[in-house]
């Protein structure tokens, strides 16, 4: 089930129009532009709501994505590397978002740190092909996952807070 908050976030992300995957040459460029527009709008929304929680960028082909996402717990910011490939079956199938740094640290992950999504994600995605894009996958998939998993991992001591200076070394 999608909670009210997620539903509201989702509804303010622009929908995409072009059904095209990485093998579709020019149409893929059109789709990629729509992806970026939706992502930019979503990040803007997040900033306005004081809930900025990720950055993403892609390679030139738009098939390899990488960035960072973070989660605030007890006033401390926990940051994770995020990466995923766009499969050739996209957008019929959703991207498999991965947090490689957490691979092996939680059971709610598949190999390579791919996050385990709820039963509701795939049906919802399938019903919204091609209108849902990467921004929707973030809002519907990774956002709720972090909210459930990270506090739990912190409590278990699996995820530890790292000082900013330490990261920058």
């Amino acid at each position, binding site marked *: 089930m999608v909670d009210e908050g997620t539903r509201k976030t989702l509804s303010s992300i622009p929908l995409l129009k072009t059904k095209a995957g990485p093998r579709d040459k020019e149409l893929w460029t059109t789709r990629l532009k729509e992806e970026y527009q939706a992502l930019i709008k979503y990040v803007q929304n997040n900033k306005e709501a004081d809930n900025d929680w990720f950055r993403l960028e892609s390679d030139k082909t738009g098939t390899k994505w990488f960035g960072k996402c973070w989660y605030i717990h007890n006033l401390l910011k926990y940051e994770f590397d995020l990466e995923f490939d766009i499969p050739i079956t996209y957008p019929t199938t959703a991207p498999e978002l991965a947090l490689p740094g957490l691979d092996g640290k939680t059971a709610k992950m598949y190999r390579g740190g791919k996050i385990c999504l709820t039963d509701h994600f795939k049906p919802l995605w399938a*019903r919204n092909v091609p209108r849902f894009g990467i921004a929707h996958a973030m809002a519907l998939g990774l956002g709720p996952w972090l909210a459930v998993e990270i506090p739990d991992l912190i409590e278990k001591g699996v995820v530890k807070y790292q000082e900013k200076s330490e990261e920058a070394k």
Partner: protein
Amino acid sequence: MASVEELQRKVNELEAKLAAAQGNVVPMRQKIDVMSSEVVDSNPYSRLMALKRMGIVNNYEKIRELSVAVVGVGGVGSVTAEMLTRCGIGKLILYDYDKVELANMNRLFFQPHQAGLSKVDAAAATLQAINPDVSIETYNYNITTIDNFQKFCDSISKGSLTDGPVDLVLSCVDNFEARMAINTACNELNQRWFESGVSENAVSGHIQFIIPGETACFACAPPLVVASKIDEKTLKREGVCAASLPTTMGIVAGFLVQNSLKFLLGFGNVSHYLGYSALTDFFPTMSLKPNPQCEDSYCRTRQAEFKAKPVAVELATEVTEDAKPIHDDNEWGISLVDENSPEEETPTLSLVDGVQVAYSIPVDNSTPESSTGGAVAASELSLEELMQQMKSM
């Protein structure tokens, strides 16, 4: 005091033991040119060739000319590959990008000492030792990425012993993306394949035979699931992604290879869909027609080609064999997942009792679920400018 010769012998003996313990020396049998039906202890094919004498298969040795691609060498794929190897298949092509882990040891085939090796390499070594007559090719990559997908297609279309298309592709993968990628490839290449799967709760599974244009492809309908007779609400998914049992996986691999052998060697009836519910020991079978509105354009092309073909007599009998009592009322157990989902798709799919679609897709796909954000307007900016804007946020 032992003589030098005695010590020398002792050293040789210990060296051989050490090598065997380290797995350096695998006693390999010699390759066999022609399958013999002679019943002697030393003939690995005698019991298979006996199938001919008993009138089950009339051309068993043909298996030596056949090539099968096994995509995914996990709980189902590894057992599938072993069965085909023991049956004396001509060539196996294995695909997987995963490594063997100790967490895999609740399944068959792989052994603890193989942990850390790539699944394809570990599998190839074991299989080659079991049967050196099989030609084994391995690919250690993810088939769903743009770079690898074309390599995958090429290896299927030129992978046979005579550099032609393989005789059959077996999908033993564990995710929707990879199944869709195989479906895309096989529709484009007009390649027959079997889909197989075990549910994440480990108590149901299925196999499905896909002949592009003739039977439903994987994109023709939402994924089919065998009703597990568990109230979904009582199913605890918190905490883990997937459970697995060697039993369910072994059974599904058995179904998969049994039907592959029937198809490859032309005996018995090949099931178009065979389900398995472990909790009730229930095995539904059915035939599935392709969806004329399938999202995959190559599926629709293959359907048109199939319709244009003159109907062969033996095809007609093959299809009727599978005709089971089919419910034409609408009771195929639509499981509503989202509480405010719009009107449901008219079922063009007649499913046998006990099999249902994993979810439904609304008929009118043009109306968005719920959005106040509207659709993206065509941007004046170029892709590079948008990328830059995103980067500078």
